[in-house]
C-alpha cells in the first residue's frame, strides 16, 4: 500500500464526522488526575486525543475482552430457567492513535479466540473496529517490542498506520477497512520530503527499542520446553507477590474466569472476568490438589505460556514487548531482565536439566 499525506485538518474532520454518525472513537487521552498518565478513552474530537504522546497505562484489551462482561442472563421460572443471550454484534468503533504493540496484540490473541470454536464476543468487537495506529515514541527502557518481532513502526494489526510529519501524518492504509476509512481524506501522494522525514523517525524509534534488548533467539521456545524442570525456576519467582497485576496490564494475557452472580432470588447473570495464572486459586482442584502449588510453578507458567506454549500452538510469542508488566510489578520483576537472563542461561547450558 502506498503512503499518502493526511493533514491535521483532514484527520480532525474525519474524527468529527465519525463521532457525528455514531461511531465510537477511542484515543489515548490525558487523565484528569495526572497529565502524564494516558488512557485509551472515547473522544469527541481530535483535540481531545494525545497522539503519540506516550504509552497508555492499559492496553486495548479492555475494549475487546472487558475486565468483566455478561455472557448470559437467566431467570428462574415455574417451568425451569429462561436464558437471555447477550448480542455478539458490537457497535462500530475506530481506535485512533493505537500503539503498534497494542494493535499487534489483538492479532496475536485472535489466534486463541478463533482456535476451533470462535469466541464471537471477542471476534464481534474485532470485526466492528477499525484501528489507526501511530508510530510509537518509545516509552522507556522496559520496551522490547523489536525483540519479539513487533516494532514501534510495525503495521501488524493496524488498518491504518500513521507516522507524524510536518503538518500532519504520512498515512498507510494496511487493510481494505483502512483504505475505506481514508477514502477521499488524503492527498494522493506524499511528497518525498515527508516520506524521508517519516522513514527517519521510524528508524530512530526502532533503533531506540533495539538498544533495550536483543531479539529473542529462535531456539528459546524449545529451550524453555526442555528446561521445564530447570532449578532456575525455583528462585526466579521469589520476588513475585502473585498479585496478577502483570496479567491485567498485559495486552496479550487473556485468561478468564466464568462465574454466576445472583441479582435477586430468581434472576442473575453469568459473567466472564479477567483472571491470572499468578493467583494461587487459578488451578486449585476442589479436592485440594493444586498442580501449581507455589509461585515458582505459577511464574514458570507465565513465562512458558508466553514464550513456549503459545509459539508451539500458534507459531508466535504471546508477548508484544510493551513493557507494561515490568513497569507495574510491585516486586520489581522486569521481563527484559528475566528473559535476558534465561537466554544467557540457555546459551551457557543448552543441555538442560530435563524434567
Amino acid at each position: 500500500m502506498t503512503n499518502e499525506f493526511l493533514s491535521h485538518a483532514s484527520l480532525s474532520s474525519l474524527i468529527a464526522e465519525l463521532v457525528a454518525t455514531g461511531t465510537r472513537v477511542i484515543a489515548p487521552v490525558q487523565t484528569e488526575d495526572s497529565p502524564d498518565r494516558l488512557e485509551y478513552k472515547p473522544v469527541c474530537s481530535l483535540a481531545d486525543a494525545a497522539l503519540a504522546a506516550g504509552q497508555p497505562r492499559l492496553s486495548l484489551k479492555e475494549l475487546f475482552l472487558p475486565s468483566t462482561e455478561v455472557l448470559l442472563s437467566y431467570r428462574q421460572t415455574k417451568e425451569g430457567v429462561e436464558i437471555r443471550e447477550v448480542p455478539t454484534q458490537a457497535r462500530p468503533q475506530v481506535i485512533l492513535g493505537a500503539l503498534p504493540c497494542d494493535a499487534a496484540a489483538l492479532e496475536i490473541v485472535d489466534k486463541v479466540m478463533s482456535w476451533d470454536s470462535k469466541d464471537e464476543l471477542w471476534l464481534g468487537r474485532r470485526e466492528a473496529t477499525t484501528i489507526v495506529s501511530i508510530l510509537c515514541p518509545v516509552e522507556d527502557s522496559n520496551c522490547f517490542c523489536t525483540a519479539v518481532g513487533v516494532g514501534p513502526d510495525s503495521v501488524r494489526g493496524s488498518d491504518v498506520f500513521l507516522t507524524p510529519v510536518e503538518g500532519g501524518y504520512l498515512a498507510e492504509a494496511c487493510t481494505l477497512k483502512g483504505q475505506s476509512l481514508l477514502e477521499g481524506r488524503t492527498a494522493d501522494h506524499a511528497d518525498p520530503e515527508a516520506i524521508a522525514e517519516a522513514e527517519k523517525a521510524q528508524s530512530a524509534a526502532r533503533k531506540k527499542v533495539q538498544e533495550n534488548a536483543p531479539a529473542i533467539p529462535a531456539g528459546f521456545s524449545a529451550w524453555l520446553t526442555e528446561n521445564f524442570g530447570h532449578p532456575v525456576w525455583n528462585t526466579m519467582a521469589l520476588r513475585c507477590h502473585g498479585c496478577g497485576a502483570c496479567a491485567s496490564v498485559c495486552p496479550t494475557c487473556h485468561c478468564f474466569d466464568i462465574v454466576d452472580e445472583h441479582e435477586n432470588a430468581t434472576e442473575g447473570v453469568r459473567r466472564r472476568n479477567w483472571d491470572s495464572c499468578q493467583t494461587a486459586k487459578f488451578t486449585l482442584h476442589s479436592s485440594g490438589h493444586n498442580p501449581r502449588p507455589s509461585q515458582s510453578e505459577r511464574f514458570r507458567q507465565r513465562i512458558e505460556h508466553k514464550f513456549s506454549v503459545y509459539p508451539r500452538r500458534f507459531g508466535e510469542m504471546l508477548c508484544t514487548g510493551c513493557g507494561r508488566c515490568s513497569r507495574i510489578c510491585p516486586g520489581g520483576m522486569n521481563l527484559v531482565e528475566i528473559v535476558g537472563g534465561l537466554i544467557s542461561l540457555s546459551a551457557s547450558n543448552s543441555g538442560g536439566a530435563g524434567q
Partner: protein
Amino acid sequence: MNIYQPHLMRIAEITDETEDTRTLKLEFKDPAVAESFKFSAGQFGEYSVFGEGESTFCIASSPTRKGYIECSFKATGKVTQALRRLDTGDTIGFRGPYGNHFPIEKMKGNSVVFIAGGIGLAPVRCAIWNVLDMRDQFKDVTIVYGARSVGDLVYKRELEEWSKRTDLKICLTVDPGGETPEWKGEVARVPTAVEKTVAYAENTYAVICGPPIMIKFTLPVMDKLGFPAEHIYTTLENRMKCGLGKCGRCNIGATYVCKDGPVFTAAEMRAMPQEY
C-alpha cells in the same frame, strides 16, 4: 448462540451412589438438541446451576444409550453442593461435549481391561457400557474396580450386574480395613488386585482412571504385565472454566487438557511436564 451458552437439561432421575456421590440422569429440554446431540466415550461437559456457576465432569453414561446423559459428582465445591440441592424435574445448564475420547473404534477386535478407583469409575463406566453394548465386537473384557471402603463403591447395581455376566471377568476390591463382614470381593489396593487379575495378551488395551496415587502405582504394574504405554489410556482432570481452549487454565506445558485430552495414553503422560 455464543459458545458459552449452555443447553437446558432437566434432571430426570437422581441416584445416590455413596454418602457424598450422586448420579444425575439428564434430558435435553429442547427436542431438537436431544435429537442431534452426539458424543463419544470419555468426553466431558460444563454443567451449571444457574446462580452458582459451572463445573466440569465427564459424561458418565455411554453414547450407545440414547436420549439422555448421566453425570456423577461428589459434593465438594460451590457448584457441586448446589447441584446436590436440586431435585428431579429441576433445570440445569450443559455445554459440551468437549475434548477427545477413548479410542473405542481402535479397540474393536481386541481385548480391553478396565481399571478404576473410587469415583474414577465414572469415565470408565461410560467406556465399559460402550464396549458391553457392542460386546461381540471385542475379545476378552476385564474389569478391576476398587474403592477405599465398601461404602465408597459407586454404581453398585451395575457392579452386581457385571458380576453376574459370564462374558467378562470382574474383580471388585476394597482397601484393607475398608471391608465389611458381608464383603465377598478382594481386600487389596487396586494395583495389587490388577497384578492378581489381569494377564496381558497381545492386542489388549487398558483404560485406567482413579486418584493420581492409584494411577501412579498401577502404571508400573501394567509395565510389568507387559502393556505397552501406548495401549494404556487414562484421563486427566484439571480445573477448567471454558472447556474450549481459551480461558488458559488447564494446560500442562503445551498440552491443553480440554482440547488435547482429557484422554491421554500413558506414553503421552510420561512425555508431559510433571505438573498435574
